[in-house]
């Protein structure tokens, strides 16, 4: 059934700081960077920051994986007089694309008019790349952490291995994700990795957790990105063309559950992105099908998980993601579904998925660096991780 709130709200402003290599944002602070992103998003939306009256976070209102956002602190800092909505999706980056749905819930409930979603990330003391290995484990993670799977990439390498075993997926498929996104980053001024990459260089990249090498891992960066959601009625008066929230789903099935934070998933869920339930609902909500999507911003913390998301969203059949990407299907030039046209988290920057929202909005406004001609529908996904995972489709205004 088509979503009752389809196109009722829109993303009307996006703002970002520059992107920094891990740790290089110091002496800026999380709130300094978040403030810049929020004020730039307001400027992009054509509103004053004092008009913000709602906050819709994801990742349990985390700012990275160590710090936390606090609505009251942000209000005090930015002079926001009153809020009617302050909520978060739970768990981590899986909920990123669902935050727009959360904002829609607040707006359509009449609780707020202009809702901001923000993520800021600064990796000084604790690298995300080894976040699971730090400190004494909880009773639950005492069944995972001692194995030496110290970071998310190590954990997801185990999923990638299973995918290779079940379906014959080759490293050349992961290489194609890395190579195609690097090509997209070459002309993008905001991208951290902008030098051409050869296949030979890919295969020379050190194995961090076999079958994944360093280039299969996304960047570790600092920075902040924010976006403003409002009702479509108000969006008409905005400074820029709105990007309508055509659909936004989050959640997932028990079989996926805590995913690689436990590894209990049966086949075929184990070698997947866990996105199939939210993808199926997204197609139902919007009445669209994969071939209707013009550009896909697929959460790319690790190259192999892009392959599995393409399967779960139905761009190809389950298990055929490897040959699908190796056919050139995800290339900006000549591909049937251009993926991560901004270079993604593998080559541009990693702000826990938010750079994908920025790119989707640029594509739908027609101002992207690698502009997909006449792009009308953009898919954005949250990170394959412990539930909730999420997806969203934005429509050109």
């Amino acid at each position, binding site marked *: 059934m088509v979503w009752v709130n389809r196109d009722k709200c829109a993303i009307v402003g996006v703002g970002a700081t520059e992107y920094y290599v891990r740790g290089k944002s110091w002496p800026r602070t999380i709130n300094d960077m978040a403030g810049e992103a929020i004020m730039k998003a307001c400027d992009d939306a054509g509103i004053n920051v004092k008009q913000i009256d709602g906050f819709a976070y994801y990742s349990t209102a985390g700012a990275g994986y160590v710090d936390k956002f606090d609505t009251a602190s942000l209000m005090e800092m930015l002079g926001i007089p009153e809020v009617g909505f302050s909520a978060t999706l739970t768990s981590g980056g899986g909920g990123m694309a669902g935050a727009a749905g959360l904002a829609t819930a607040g707006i359509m409930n009449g609780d707020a008019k202009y809702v901001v979603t923000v993520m800021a990330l600064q990796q000084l003391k604790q690298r995300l790349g080894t976040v699971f290995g730090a400190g004494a484990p909880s009773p639950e993670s005492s069944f995972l952490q001692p194995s030496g799977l110290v970071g998310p990439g190590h954990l997801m390498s185990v999923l990638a291995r299973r995918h290779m075993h079940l379906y014959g997926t080759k490293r050349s498929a992961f290489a194609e994700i890395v190579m195609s996104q690097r090509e997209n980053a070459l002309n993008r001024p905001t991208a951290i990795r902008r030098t051409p990459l050869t296949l030979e260089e890919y295969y020379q990249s050190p194995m961090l*957790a076999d079958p994944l090498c360093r280039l299969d891992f996304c960047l570790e960066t600092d920075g902040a990105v924010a976006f403003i959601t409002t009702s479509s009625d108000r969006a008409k008066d905005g400074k820029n063309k709105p990007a309508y929230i055509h659909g936004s789903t989050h959640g997932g099935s028990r079989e996926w559950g805590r995913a690689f934070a436990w590894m*209990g998933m049966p086949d075929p869920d184990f070698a997947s992105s866990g996105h199939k339930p939210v993808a199926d609902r997204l197609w139902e909500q919007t009445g669209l099908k994969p071939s209707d999507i013009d550009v896909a911003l697929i959460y790319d913390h690790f190259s192999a998980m892009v392959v599995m998301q393409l399967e779960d969203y139905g761009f190809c059949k389950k298990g055929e993601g490897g040959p699908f990407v190796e056919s050139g299907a995800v290339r900006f030039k000549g591909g049937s579904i251009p993926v991560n046209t901004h270079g993604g988290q593998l080559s541009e920057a990693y702000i826990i998925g938010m750079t994908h929202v920025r790119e989707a909005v640029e594509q739908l406004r027609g101002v992207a660096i690698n502009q997909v001609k006449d792009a009308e529908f953009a898919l954005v996904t949250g990170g394959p991780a412990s539930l909730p995972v999420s997806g969203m489709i934005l429509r050109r205004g």
Partner: protein
Amino acid sequence: MSSVISQAVPGDHIRISTDPSTEPFWQAAKEHRLTAPHCRQCGHFWMPPSPYCGVCQSQDIDWPTLPGTATVFSFAICHRSPFPDVADFTYVPIVVDLDGAPGARLVSNLVGVDPDAVHIGMKVTVDWNPIQDDWVLPNFRKA
């Protein structure tokens, strides 16, 4: 085939914590017994331990001694030390299906093997690695 042999993660660098739901697993490990929570009402096995059976929500749980053998479901091969004060070494994190406890998995390490010889479906048997605070961690060797 490589000449490298996979090692255990050094036990003096491993800490765990327990709660009343998980402690029976770790107490059994101290006695070199591999176990998993088992529902006496419906027969379901699961891991990691939690206060309810996920199938029938019963709290009537017992802890049978398992054969200690398992099958590799998936794995990674790592060559870098997880600890800044330990030199690089090769270790093989594994996800295994536990024999005698259908549906229950364990995330562990496969030690004493040529990493190039590890494969999904490989049969393995439990091995015990002493860790901090007098706890003992189950690892696995080739069966």
